[in-house]
């Protein structure tokens, strides 16, 4: 396998956890949560700081996810208890997190060259030659764990209630559940996943950077939308697997357009934004054509 291809697949897997987090808020809760831009970096910042401070990488990863959940909880509280519109609540969290991330890292960039990471741990375990060789196995393992957990969780009583709340909060309130509590939980879960993704991506990249979350939500949306092409009206587990596939396809597209110099690396964010805008537009057009009404 060429290195371009394997790096696209590895990145697709590691970033797919971000995409799954975006899916939880964007599709299940019906909210565009911009906290992700900050919580992705937060995951990286917490991981880099902890690893450099000597915390075992696996614990650093879990700590990152926990901090992401906290960030999501803050957005959830801003939205439900302080009645700030969800989009603005996300922007406030994202902006605040920029300073938090700088505080955590103490500087704008922390390299992870001379330290053990979860990749080097896994490389030793699997007797591989290079750290990066462990990226695909790590991605598969992490994705399998995340999907397994989510499929279990969203089939519990609490999980059903979250799905119902995102679809229609009148219904869940009429059935005696606080919609605020469910929304906060949804924000927390989504941002825990996004921070987890940030943690893994920074270890793959070999550094954490305070700017690395910029555009994260659009990358996640691109993966979700590409994935949904394969997942029309399918079961939850299939939808999640499709998002992972969408994330890998997105990375392959990026690798293709950069390697063939169709798009310069500097224009990548613009390219992705246009891609997402067009994809959402086409989805809407095809739904109108099909006369489908979504309640």
């Amino acid at each position: 396998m060429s290195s371009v291809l394997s790096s696209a697949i590895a990145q697709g897997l590691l970033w797919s956890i971000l995409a799954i987090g975006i899916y939880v808020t964007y599709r299940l809760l019906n909210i565009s949560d911009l906290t992700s831009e900050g919580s992705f970096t937060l995951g990286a910042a917490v991981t880099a700081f902890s690893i450099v401070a000597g915390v075992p990488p696996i614990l650093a990863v879990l700590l990152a996810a926990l901090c992401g959940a906290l960030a999501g909880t803050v957005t959830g509280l801003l939205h439900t208890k302080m009645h700030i519109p969800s989009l603005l609540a996300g922007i406030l969290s994202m902006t605040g997190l920029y300073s938090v991330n700088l505080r955590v890292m103490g500087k704008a960039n922390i390299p992870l060259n001379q330290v053990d990471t979860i990749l080097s741990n896994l490389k030793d375990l699997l007797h591989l030659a290079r750290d990066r060789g462990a990226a695909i196995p790590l991605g598969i393992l992490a994705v399998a764990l995340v999907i397994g957990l989510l499929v279990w969780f969203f089939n519990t009583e609490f999980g059903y209630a979250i799905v119902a709340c995102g679809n229609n909060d009148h219904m869940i309130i009429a059935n005696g559940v606080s919609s605020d509590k469910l929304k906060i939980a949804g924000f927390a879960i989504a941002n825990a996943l996004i921070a987890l993704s940030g943690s893994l991506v920074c270890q793959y990249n070999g550094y954490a950077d305070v700017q690395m979350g910029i555009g994260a939500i659009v990358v996640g949306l691109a993966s979700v939308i590409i994935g949904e092409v394969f997942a029309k009206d399918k079961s939850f587990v299939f939808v999640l697997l499709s998002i992972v596939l969408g994330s890998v396809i997105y990375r392959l597209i990026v690798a293709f357009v950069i390697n063939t110099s169709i798009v310069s690396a500097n224009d990548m964010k613009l390219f992705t934004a246009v891609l997402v805008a067009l994809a959402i537009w086409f989805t809407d057009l095809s739904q109108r054509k099909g006369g489908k009404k979504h309640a």
Partner: protein
Amino acid sequence: MLEIKGLCKTFNPGTINEKKVFEDLSLTLNSGDFVTVIGGNGAGKSTLLNMIAGTYPFDKGQLLLDGKDITKLKEYERAAFMGHVFQDPLLGTCSNLSIAENLSIARRKGKRRTLRRGITEAEREEYRALLAPLGLGLEERLTEKVGLLSGGQRQALTLLMATLVRPQLLLLDEHTAALDPKTAQIVLDLTNELVQRDQLTTLMITHNMRDALKTGNRLIMMSEGKIILDINGEAKKQATVSDLLALFEQNNASLDDKMLLG
């Protein structure tokens, strides 16, 4: 038994849009009462129902349900012992979940949502038996998403869900108004059946005078936030649509077309 005592509510107080909806409204529903509520637009029917449900707070007054003061409870807390069916058939059910999953959410009303499995095999059997008598074929479609059902089917399902755990009070907010006449009749028949089976204390708002007269044991007419007619038993049985219309005229109540057609 539901007791509403001295209810006051003003929307937008202190502005040019200020609207006094209720000034000292009191009403008692006896246990097992099935009350139909009619009145023109702006009479305060829906506002009253929403205040009982807890959707809006009120300025003054007290709500007692079976002797318990529920004035300070939030909407979701009150929902633990109330059933609420909305006018819009899309609001009472979740379109992304299956029929069985929707019912399982209603089955756990008033209970904490835990990390136990959302639905058990035994429940599926129970729901199949519950849906079969409706004659809508829903018992064969337990795993289908509710988004695929028609408005009437969804409203029938909402009714089942609202009464799955026996509510101390059932609130029906023009729940047949958005349906075609035939489906509306099916849903109304189901309503009667469920209310009678469980002897539910029920408050039903309707635009349809004929439905209001032939349904339930008590009828209330509202105008400008006041109860202008409250009849039950024989008096209600004797009343006709033209009696109600005459009373409307007397009170200069605003009539809307739908009601005249009803």
